[in-house]
């Protein structure tokens, strides 16, 4: 109901004098409030961690033996300052792609690999350059590397895409990142299981499907969640590989 004691605002007329003080206060509150919310929300962001592309290391080139888990690995035989001999390096392509088509013909052979390193603590991965410059056969004697079975383990932790986790994206894990992680896994980027408890000294394990296959797509529903799972663990140099038994996947509270 209209009220003659109330100042009446009409948009195309000057604001009534009785309202100007209130409107000015609202303007000041609005502008300062938005600036305040910008600050409060801006500084409320969590630390994405130390993972990163190590462009500062420069291009890395090492030689080793290519293995397929089926995700391609390099058992380094001739390393450098950053990547020592004896290290097992996971290999990925640019973006959300893999290097399997280039690695399959070289399985069990000596190869030279070149690219950029991604590093988060003890976890690392190489983003291999495109074409032959990234992955090519190398001359030399092929050493024999052991794969040591460590038996069946029941573990709790999170399935991540190894590349984002290692620092391709900051942040690169968690439920808000799940779709991105799934897309990486669909691109056959090596997946990594982050265990809550170290397994034989390592909290990061390359996770594959059973019987030497890729991580099954049924497992994608569990990506980025806190899960328990079981599988066979094997050691390949300093990298652990977990062969997931998909039937054991279970979400934990």
């Amino acid at each position, binding site marked *: *109901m*209209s009220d*003659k004691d109330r*100042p*009446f*605002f*009409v*948009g*195309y*007329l*000057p*604001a009534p004098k009785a*309202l100007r003080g*209130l*409107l000015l206060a*609202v*303007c000041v509150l*609005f*502008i300062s*409030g*938005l*600036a305040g*919310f*910008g*600050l*409060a*929300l*801006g*500084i*409320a*962001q*969590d*630390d*994405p*961690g*130390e*993972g990163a592309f190590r462009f500062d290391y420069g291009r890395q080139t090492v030689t080793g033996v290519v293995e397929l888990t089926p995700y391609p690995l390099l058992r380094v035989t001739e390393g450098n300052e950053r990547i020592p001999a004896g290290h097992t390096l996971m290999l990925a392509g*640019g*973006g*959300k*792609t893999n290097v399997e088509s280039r690695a399959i013909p070289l399985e069990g052979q000596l190869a030279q690999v070149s690219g950029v390193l991604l590093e988060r603590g003890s976890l690392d991965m190489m983003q291999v350059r495109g074409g032959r410059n990234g992955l090519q056969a190398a001359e030399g004697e092929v050493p024999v590397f052991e794969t040591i079975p460590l038996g069946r383990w029941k573990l709790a932790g999170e399935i991540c895409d190894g590349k984002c986790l290692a*620092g391709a*994206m*900051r*942040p690169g894990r968690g*439920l*808000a*990142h*799940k*779709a*991105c992680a*799934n*897309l990486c896994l*669909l*691109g056959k980027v090596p997946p990594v299981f982050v265990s809550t408890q170290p397994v034989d000294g390592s909290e990061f394990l390359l996770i594959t499907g059973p019987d030497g296959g890729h991580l099954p797509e049924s497992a*994608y*529903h569990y990506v*980025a*969640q806190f899960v328990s799972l079981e599988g066979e663990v094997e050691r390949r140099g300093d990298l652990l590989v977990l062969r997931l038994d998909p039937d054991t996947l279970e*979400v934990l509270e």
Partner: protein
Amino acid sequence: MSVKYIPVQWNPNKYIYDAVMLLGVGLFLYVFLYASPGILSHERPINPQVHNARAFGACAFVMLTVILCIGPLARLDPRFLPLLYNRRHFGVMTVFVAITHAGYIVDWYFAFSSSNKYEALLFANTSYGQLAGFPFEVFGIFALFTLILLAATSHDFWMKFLSPPVWKRIHYLIYPAYLSVVAHVSFGILQDQQNHAFTMIFIGGAAAVGILQLIAALKERRADQELASEAVEWVPVCDVSEMKEGFAKIKLLANGERVAVYLNEGKLSAISNACAHQNGPLGEGQIIDCLVTCPWHGFQYDVTNGRSPAPFTEKIPTYNLKTEGTRVLVDPRANPPGTYVEPVPAGATS
């Protein structure tokens, strides 16, 4: 009011409104993007694309929250009606901020694969059967498309073209859109957040919208109960002595329509309470230059025939009135929009 459609009918108040809005939004983004990283003690910075996406996403949420607080605030205290005046510009600006947020997300999280990034947005996560890990992106997509639809149809042309009731119903989609934004944030970033400041601000904002809407709805319900009338041939409105020159009394008829009875130059006239523009409450306006003026956007009508002054063409229904002693009574059967009704002398008035 307009005779022809032009993109924006600017006036000094609109310039001030938009300037304040742009300054607030600009400051939010500047502080989030450029001031906060210096305060964060992260060993390595958040990816710029993620940082930008968060800044624009958070800004869109805050803007939408403010927009949805304006309506109930103005219903609770009419002094806040000026905030409603140019709210559509605020809404359109929010859509641009939300689109920028979506752009950063799609170009970062869903790019770099061999698939089309827009297709990837739809198929990358299909865990619809679970709460944790639910594809919260779909809530964002729904909200964004709804906001785009509302912004695209916000111009008066569309209101005229669709008719105000249809237009109004379409624009009620803002509420599902906001709920969808709340779900988008709740199933998304909130799941990973370790710092609870964001959670508190988010819950506080969403709760403010919910509580204000609820209080305003309860107030209107109480008011409706006071204004409600029986289904009779002539509906009593009030005593003539309660009428004030240039102002109205509103009555809620049994058929759900509201009628505004105005006292103008000592005579009584009744018109529909719903403005032809956006159904604004004409009975809460006042007579300026002999014309009833809507409190929302200033649309004007001749109180005797419900017509906007030439060259404008808006028309609203009128009602027949009579007095019995000092009682004012209204015939609940509305006349066709624009029908002239001879004003009734009020007799004794305040």
